[in-house]
């Protein structure tokens, strides 16, 4: 069977796992290409206008897989929780509902399952057992496949913790390539944003590469281990409800405190609900810590120049600040 995985939303974090999982069960896996204008346009047409871009893009990828690649099933997981006591944004929890009822004509080609876990390791086979009928697999197969997939995913996570950005880290696992990370005395910027924004070249307009070209080192949240992240927000009376938002919050607080990091860029999608609060929390904290902070809000527009200008200006400012301080 041909199984399609949309290159959107949490594919950028769990893609390594899901790809390996379906391959191990003997299916052909087709991942949609990087977002392009066509995919995005399809997505925009399929969604209600107000919803955030990442969801629109997801729908675009989904339709691409079904109509262009003729996959038998496309995988749309219902993400519920990957941390004890925390859940996902409502749009993730209702994603299959949104897809099935929003586009009823493709509802029988959707492969969906509840993913619920106490930690971010989602390899428990029980999460996938409901797929066994559609995938023609028995319990043993599912167990074996999730075990194998987990090995790959853990390798991916080890790579990211070594400071390799998630897209490169996934490539290393899949293709056995090597990624050289250069250590330098450049200025370092923390880019805080969800994986599906940062690693979607269409949305983020390759912000990480742009920084790289400017001789800037960068850090993203998946390069920090969970312990470091959660120790940053343990003093909060009430944490956010959304796991990835909490991770961003922890990573943001960490970089605002850490002297090796010169500035913080918050990359957020237009209309992102959790980020509206997150951004305010960063704003307040950056005031206290006296650290440069910039919000970049992205949407389906494609004009790239303004982004280039803003990043260059931000970087120039940080460089001058650093020179002044060291002089």
């Amino acid at each position, binding site marked *: 069977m041909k199984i399609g995985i949309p290159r959107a939303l949490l594919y950028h974090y769990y893609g390594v796992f899901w790809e390996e999982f379906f391959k191990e069960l003997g299916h052909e896996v087709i991942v949609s290409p990087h977002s392009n204008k066509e995919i995005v346009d399809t997505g925009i047409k399929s969604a209600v206008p*107000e919803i955030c871009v990442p969801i629109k893009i997801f729908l675009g990828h989904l339709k691409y897989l079904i109509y262009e690649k003729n996959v038998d099933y496309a995988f749309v997981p219902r993400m519920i929780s990957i941390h004890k006591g925390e859940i996902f944004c*409502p749009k993730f929890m209702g994603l299959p*509902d949104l897809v099935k009822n929003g586009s009823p004509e493709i509802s029988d080609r959707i492969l969906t399952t509840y993913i619920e876990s106490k930690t971010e390791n989602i390899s428990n086979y029980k999460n996938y057992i409901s797929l066994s009928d559609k995938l023609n697999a028995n319990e043993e197969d599912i167990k074996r496949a999730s075990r194998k997939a987990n090995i790959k995913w853990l390798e991916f996570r080890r790579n990211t913790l070594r400071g390799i950005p998630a897209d490169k880290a996934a490539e290393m696992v899949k293709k056995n390539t090597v990624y050289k990370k250069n250590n330098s005395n450049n200025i370092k910027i923390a880019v805080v944003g969800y994986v599906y924004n940062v690693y979607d070249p269409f949305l983020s307009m390759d912000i990480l590469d742009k920084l790289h070209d400017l001789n800037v080192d960068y850090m993203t949240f998946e390069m920090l281990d969970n312990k470091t992240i959660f120790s940053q927000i343990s003093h909060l009376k*009430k944490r956010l409800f959304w796991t990835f938002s909490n991770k961003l919050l922890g990573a943001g607080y960490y970089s605002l405190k850490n002297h090796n990091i010169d500035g913080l860029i918050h990359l957020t999608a237009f209309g992102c609900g959790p980020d509206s609060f997150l951004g305010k*929390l960063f704003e307040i904290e950056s005031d206290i810590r006296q650290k440069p902070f910039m919000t970049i809000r992205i949407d389906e527009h494609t004009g790239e120049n303004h982004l280039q200008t803003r990043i260059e200006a931000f970087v120039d400012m940080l460089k001058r600040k650093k020179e002044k301080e060291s002089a």
Partner: protein
Amino acid sequence: MSNKVSFPYLGHVIVYKKFLQMMGFEVIMPPAPTQKTIDLGVKYSPEFACIPFKMLMGNYIEACELGANTIISSGGHGPCRAGFYGEVHQRILRQMGYDVNFIIFDSPKRDLFGTIKKFFKIKNKQSISKMVKVSKVVFPVLKDLDTFEKKIHTMIPYEINKGQSLEVWREIYKIYDEVYSQKELLEARAEGHRMIDSIKLRKVNDDEKIKIGIVGEIFVVIEPSINMDVENLLCSLGCEAERSLYLSEWVEHNIFGEKHEKTIQDLGEKYIEILIGGHAKTTVGNIVDFKNRGFDGIIHLMPFGCLPELVSQSVIPKITSDHDIPVLTLSIDEQTGKSNNLTRIEAFIDLIRNKKTKEKVFSGGKK
């Protein structure tokens, strides 16, 4: 320092005032929201926060200006943003220089000890029996007000003396504002019923009535100052209007564990499988429920960018075609210009009216 207590402006505010006053607090009544409230809220809130957040922000700032130093509100357990309002509001108010405490009631499941501590703060050194006694007055007041309001909105379209029903409603509200004991409650109730019965109505056949249900996120559904007073608007266009949410029902569901909302949610299960926070599943269930009860159309209200309601908005086309019920979604933000939405609502009602007439003609007037 004595506690000067205030609270969110939502729905029948006299009820919260009454409860806190009777528990012996000094209450700062938040001013009714105006354009200034919205402007203040928008100015100090994150740009993409939803409209309830911004309204409450303005609301709290105005209350703080009047000297409030404690704000009581309800929390939540996500994943809707509303559960985190208090935390952010407090930080923003502190940054603005107001020294204000928040008492936010979360689900006891999340923080049992904290809830008990907050309960004692609310108890304000009064006895438990006093609290029970107070609740026994305050809750029926809330329930009565909701019942009367519901009733009024089925009468306005047919009243003979234009404006009489609303006049009566304002009178009733005033009477209930003075209720502080069981005896006064009973008197007020009798008086309320008498006044309602005195309203003269045109006789209208049932098949000529147009009934519109209002569903959506609790804040924009309940608070008239932000939803263009949509109920009365609908009434003025000659329709009966009923909301899916009344505060007394919310209290019954969340505090007394009443089952009505659960059955509504079950109706929505086909479209949204699990609770995804906010009122999404209830919204969807209510649309089906209204249809089953013979309503002619639904107005779906949501704050711009509301996370759960965006999911319900996405599934509504399916419900409309499954159940043959027209739904108009209006997304509400700080733009207060009415005419845009007014035009859409008028057009919507015209469509429904035409549809009804057509059905009647084609069924040979038998229906």
